[in-house]
């Protein structure tokens, strides 16, 4: 397919536009009427869907940017060059939306800049805030050649391309710290977080699972965009990503099992409570099943097999973030006697975030040389 053949308005795009518009109204409502009017958050459940799905999930889904960026620019593994632009652009949208979501989630959105000037180095949240700002800037810089190319600004284009390895290194460093610090956010709460998830290794678990998710997310995008924009998927790249997934998911599975056996013990995972069932679902969908499927050669060398594994890993890892942020504290909080289920506005805003990301990505594919399609 050529770039000019990409239609701006397809039925899916129109649905996404409607969701994005409705979600924007809900966002304005939240800003003017407060969190109590728009969400079901309360004193026992200070964090809900926006923090877990949009922020923790969104950042994890954006991990492809640093994994592929590092592979291409630092490991000089040129085989993956065709997917580096979409991976980084996708990461940029992921971070932009995570940043928007956290701005909406905090009590005073107009004070979002406070951590940048009021440093408090004991706080993981301060470190997370600094990372989000620096890394979103880094991703914008990494994506800027797309725009320079379009505008014919050759000098700027060559300059950024030339220093790209250094920018990529900076991005890798920020991401390694940022992905792990999102796990470290929960280190302070051993009283509340169920031992099924709580571990002093939480930062490393978040990092390893983010890398695992990154490989699947990039592979998933590559397959989907090859179908949507009708070009042949780069099979070599997909096979390589699948091999990477096999290694990382094997390591992550071993780490998770080691923590389970040395920590709370396997009994807690099978006691039939909501908490342990959610843990099992996360582990089976996100780790065990993908790992077993990937060990089979006829699955990991087949487009449909790879796609299937990718979907499992994406769902499982996002569920992990949701579990750590909400379900892990359910037993503690329910004992206090308060429940939480997201309001319709919380769902709508989250859906709008996803819609914005897809629409933005599509616009970039149409007008910028993201997929290196014919003009």
């Amino acid at each position, binding site marked *: 397919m050529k770039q000019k053949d990409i239609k701006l308005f397809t039925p899916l795009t129109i649905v996404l536009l409607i969701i994005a518009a409705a979600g924007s109204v809900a966002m304005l409502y939240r*800003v*003017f*009427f*407060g*969190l*109590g*009017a728009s969400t079901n*958050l*309360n*004193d026992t459940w*200070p*964090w809900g869907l926006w923090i877990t799905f949009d922020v923790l999930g969104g950042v994890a889904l954006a991990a492809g940017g640093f994994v592929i960026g590092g592979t291409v*620019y*630092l*490991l*000089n*593994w040129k085989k993956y060059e065709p997917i580096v632009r979409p991976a980084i652009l996708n990461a940029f949208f992921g971070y932009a939306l995570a940043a928007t979501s*956290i701005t909406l*989630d*905090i*009590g*005073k959105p107009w*004070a*979002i800049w*406070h*951590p940048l000037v*009021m*440093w*408090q*180095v*004991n*706080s*993981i*949240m301060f470190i*997370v*805030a*600094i990372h989000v700002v*620096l890394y979103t800037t880094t991703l914008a810089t990494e994506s800027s050649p797309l725009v320079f190319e379009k505008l014919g600004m050759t000098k700027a284009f060559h300059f950024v391309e*030339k*220093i*790209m*390895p*250094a*920018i990529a*290194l*900076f991005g*890798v*460093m920020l991401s*390694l*710290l940022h992905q*792990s610090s999102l796990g*470290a956010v*929960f*280190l*302070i*709460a*051993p*009283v*509340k977080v169920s031992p099924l998830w709580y571990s*002093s290794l939480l930062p490393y678990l978040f990092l390893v699972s983010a890398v695992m998710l990154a490989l699947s997310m990039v592979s998933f995008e590559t397959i989907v965009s090859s179908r949507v924009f009708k070009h042949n998927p780069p099979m070599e790249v997909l096979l390589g990503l699948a091999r990477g997934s096999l290694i990382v998911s094997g390591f992550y599975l071993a780490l998770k099992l080691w923590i389970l056996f040395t920590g709370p013990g396997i009994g807690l995972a099978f006691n039939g409570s909501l908490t342990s069932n959610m843990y099992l679902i996360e582990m089976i969908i996100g780790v065990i099943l993908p790992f077993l499927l990937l060990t089979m050669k006829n699955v990991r060398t087949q487009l449909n097999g790879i796609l299937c594994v990718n979907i499992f890993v994406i769902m499982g890892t996002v569920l992990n973030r949701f579990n750590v942020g909400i379900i892990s504290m359910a037993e503690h909080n329910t004992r206090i006697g308060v429940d939480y289920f997201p309001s319709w506005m919380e769902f709508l805003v989250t859906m709008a975030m996803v819609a914005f990301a897809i629409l933005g990505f599509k616009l970039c594919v149409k007008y910028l040389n993201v997929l290196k399609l014919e003009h």
Partner: protein
Amino acid sequence: MSMNRRDFLKTAAAGSGALLASTVTPARAAMPKELPPEAVGILYDATLCIGCKSCVVNCKIYNNVPGGALYLQGRTDAYDVKPSEPFWDSANDLSSKTLNVIKVSKTGTAVNKDSMENGYSFIKQHCLHCISPACASVCPVGALKKDPVKGFVTYDKDKCFGCRYCMVACPFNIPRFEYERAIPQIRKCQLCYHRYAEGKYSACCEFCPTGASIFGKVVDLRKEAQKRLTLKQGDDYDFPVRTVDSKEKSRRPVSKYINHVYGLNEAGGTQYLFLAGVPFEWLGFNKNITDTFLPDLTWAYIAKIPALIAGILIAGSATWAVTRKRNKDKEE
């Protein structure tokens, strides 16, 4: 298109130099672990509490003035109670409008005070003013702060941007958030520090008629609490009223105590101490709360960051140089 080694190092250094420099000089790294020199606090003795809730009412009244923890300019009528008017409905939990609450735990017919058999016990819930407060350690903007001299934990609404990490971090679920307002604040007990300048102290203690809540230096409160545990049940004892060093005493027989001062070591120690006749877990204290200094758990990670930044930059640069050379060799 490809970049030479010098350019690479220059750009990498420029990009991360500032970040690295700022991270290796942590201004006030790690949280305090010692009781501040002039630390003040409260001792609550559940066996003396009669559940009159005078502390709850007076907490609202005396914090609803400029400088108080419930004060909101232009909205003095917003908080349940006005000093001039009586009110008839009492709060059953902490909220953004209630910083101090009396709760009751009961079993069976609930006739025996401070007993687990057909009995009941009161408990007074508000901020414990931890020696190493998790809330202050996680606050990204330093809105929650521990006073270095007297040790009470204060809140600055102008710094706070409402991330609510303090609520997640507090093991006692103390900080509350004004969800109902579009310009919200965190609300929590600040030990009435706004009253110290005029020679006053925490309103809940000043208006406690039985001496169940007494205010004083934490070292004195600890001594008083430990002394009460050594008293013989049934003997008469002169319980101080309002403050630990008060001349005003209330003479009454000593009740049965659980042999434990809650807050001496919990969460690393708190400036609010408790005595009770029933197990503290039954009064709502989470059994998962250990004697660990909670901020240590995150500091273990944060302390590694400067080394990680340096390590990643060095390892990354080396990898880039090696793999680039290998690619070039292959091409030749």
